[in-house]
């Protein structure tokens, strides 16, 4: 048909065309349909709906199970995970791995003596205090803890310093109770440990527990007179003997190590000291100066980090200058390090190793006796500050505390430093010091880095 025909098509014609066009196309497929194909039964159909529903329900149930499994798994994982490791060293060295809920996950005997006592014990899944009790009990029965001098080292390793601290006191408490029940006394050294490869290899080399190795390393760090050979000797001793050596030679037991003494009179242990960790600020300078009877070990032991110590001889200074070195930590771990401090004619110049910011700076200057002197911050910049102070006398040591200062990045802190006024005409004396601020708390820094607690033979405090 041509186009003119199309133009004439009206609705009726279109309808007719469509009708006739399809009429011819309609196939006859009836014969192709296989009527022998079995018909689906209604039951089948309803079942299919039911199956569908059941499938939905099943998947819901499966989802529920998954969630329960996940929650349970997490719970089990949390419970099965070693949260802290507690080492108990007498001579038998026992290591208890506990989970978050203080349930013992594994109890490991680290030496032959320990294997002897641990053989019959199954401490898995037991509460920590029960386990500690059992271990101490077994040590007593097997004669490792006797009426005579006893020393127990408790080492707690946990990622969280706070948690470790709590756990430590709990364990020490447990041990004390256990000992009391057995009518025994012991010196309980306890420490918090962080994992260090060096210590690990040391422990392996001498076949001692990690806790003991850590203890010895701490001891060496703080008592520079101790050589590696001494360490080897000490490593072969049991805790009781080590304790004896410590008291005999008056070594400093510092850091996290806390030496507690049973209240009953213990002759050999009477000299041991207890230092609370809460003594956040310990200036070694102060410590040594107030303890004139300190042995040489004690005096030199204080410089746990030689790189942070500068002597005045490094700075060419006039006789009227005094250099000191201070170190500052704050809570966030950001440090303000004092490079050195100059004092000249009523002006204290403080130079910082790191850049600092100021906001309403304040300063207070005190002498050893606690007398305060009028002082003000007269000038500040990012690396130093000037403090005007009046009324100081010659040849004395003063402490200053700077406020309103913060590291480039971090919160405001206080910085404490020490300086000495020179005696006119005298050669400048040298002083070295490490100070730490009160802001520094146990929580923020690695135990061994910041807290050095001085023990001296001259002054003994007991808990």
């Amino acid at each position: 048909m041509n186009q003119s025909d199309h133009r004439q098509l009206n609705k009726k014609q279109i309808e007719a065309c469509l009708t006739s066009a399809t009429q011819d196309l309609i196939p006859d497929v009836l014969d192709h349909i296989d009527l022998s194909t079995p018909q689906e039964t209604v039951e089948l159909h309803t079942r299919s709906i039911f199956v569908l529903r059941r499938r939905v329900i099943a998947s819901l149930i499966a989802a529920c199970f998954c969630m329960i499994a996940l929650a349970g798994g997490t719970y089990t994982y949390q419970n099965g995970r070693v949260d802290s490791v507690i080492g108990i060293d007498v001579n038998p060295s026992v290591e208890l791995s506990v989970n978050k809920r203080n349930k013992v996950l594994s109890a490991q005997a680290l030496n032959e003596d320990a294997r002897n006592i641990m053989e019959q014990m199954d401490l898995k899944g037991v509460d920590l205090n029960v386990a500690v009790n059992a271990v101490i009990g077994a040590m007593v029965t097997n004669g490792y803890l006797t009426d005579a001098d006893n020393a127990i080292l408790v080492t707690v390793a946990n990622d969280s310093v706070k948690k470790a601290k709590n756990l430590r006191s709990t364990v020490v408490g447990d041990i004390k109770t256990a000992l009391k029940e057995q009518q025994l006394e012991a010196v309980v050294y306890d420490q918090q440990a962080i994992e260090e490869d060096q210590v690990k290899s040391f422990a392996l080399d001498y076949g001692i527990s990690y806790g003991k190795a850590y203890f010895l390393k701490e001891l060496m760090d703080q008592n520079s007179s101790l050589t590696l050979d001494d360490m080897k000797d000490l490593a072969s001793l049991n805790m009781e003997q080590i304790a004896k050596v410590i008291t005999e030679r008056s070594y400093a037991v510092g850091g996290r190590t806390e030496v507690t003494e049973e209240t009953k009179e213990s002759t050999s242990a009477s000299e041991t000291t207890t230092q609370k960790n809460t003594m956040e600020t310990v200036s070694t300078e102060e410590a040594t100066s107030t303890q004139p009877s300190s042995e040489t070990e004690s005096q030199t032991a204080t410089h746990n980090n030689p790189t942070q110590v500068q002597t005045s001889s490094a700075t060419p200074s006039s006789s009227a200058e005094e250099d000191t070195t201070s170190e500052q930590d704050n809570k966030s771990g950001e440090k303000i390090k004092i490079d050195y401090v100059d004092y000249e004619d009523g002006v204290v110049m403080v130079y910082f190793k790191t850049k600092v910011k100021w906001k309403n700076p304040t300063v207070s200057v005190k002498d050893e006796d606690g007398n305060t002197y009028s002082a003000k911050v007269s000038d500040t910049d990012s690396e130093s500050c000037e403090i005007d102070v009046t009324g100081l006398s010659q040849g004395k040591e003063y402490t200053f505390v700077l406020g309103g200062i913060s590291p480039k990045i971090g919160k405001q802190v206080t910085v404490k430093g020490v300086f000495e006024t020179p005696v006119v005409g005298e050669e400048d004396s040298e002083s070295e010091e490490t100070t730490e601020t009160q802001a520094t708390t146990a929580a923020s820094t690695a135990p061994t880095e910041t807290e050095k607690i001085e023990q001296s033979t001259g002054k003994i405090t007991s808990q």
Partner: protein
Amino acid sequence: MLFMGLMSLDRPDDYGRLSDEKLLIKVANGDQEAFRQLYQNTDRTMYSFILSIVKNPQDAEEIMQEVFLKIWTSAKSYKSQGKPLAWMFTIARNLCYMKFRDQKHDSDVTIDDLMGVEAGEVCQEIEMAADKMVLLAALQILKEEEREIVLLHTSGGLKHREIAASLNIPLATALSKYNRAMKKMENYLREE
């Protein structure tokens, strides 16, 4: 006995007078004769409907066979609602869409390819040029719903009322859509 005999004799004649609904119920009971009757009653309508969706006579034939087989096998699942055609259309529509999916899945045939194939085949099969042109135009320019309505009315022989019921749309909608589609056709054919 006589009654039974009458029943058996009357049967073939009877089927011609039965409604699709009743036939479908018989089909559900495995009555092959009822199925044949149902096929004869509805083949035009079903083919028109399928063609309006797939737009291709060859595919339409293939699908029609599948649709009727499906009607046979799943007749028992038909729930009497007075709309047997609607149910059959649903089956047909599903199978058509399944076909589209398969085609899409099987090869990377573009829409243009489909159109080309379709046009070619239509050309071969439709002998009468005018009818062919009109049908092609209808398949090309109308939307799916319009095609359904138009083809069901013209070639399927359904009344507007029946179309509305089977497609579940109001009668007014069916009518207006039909009229609009026809206008479209007229305009299109005039321009060509």
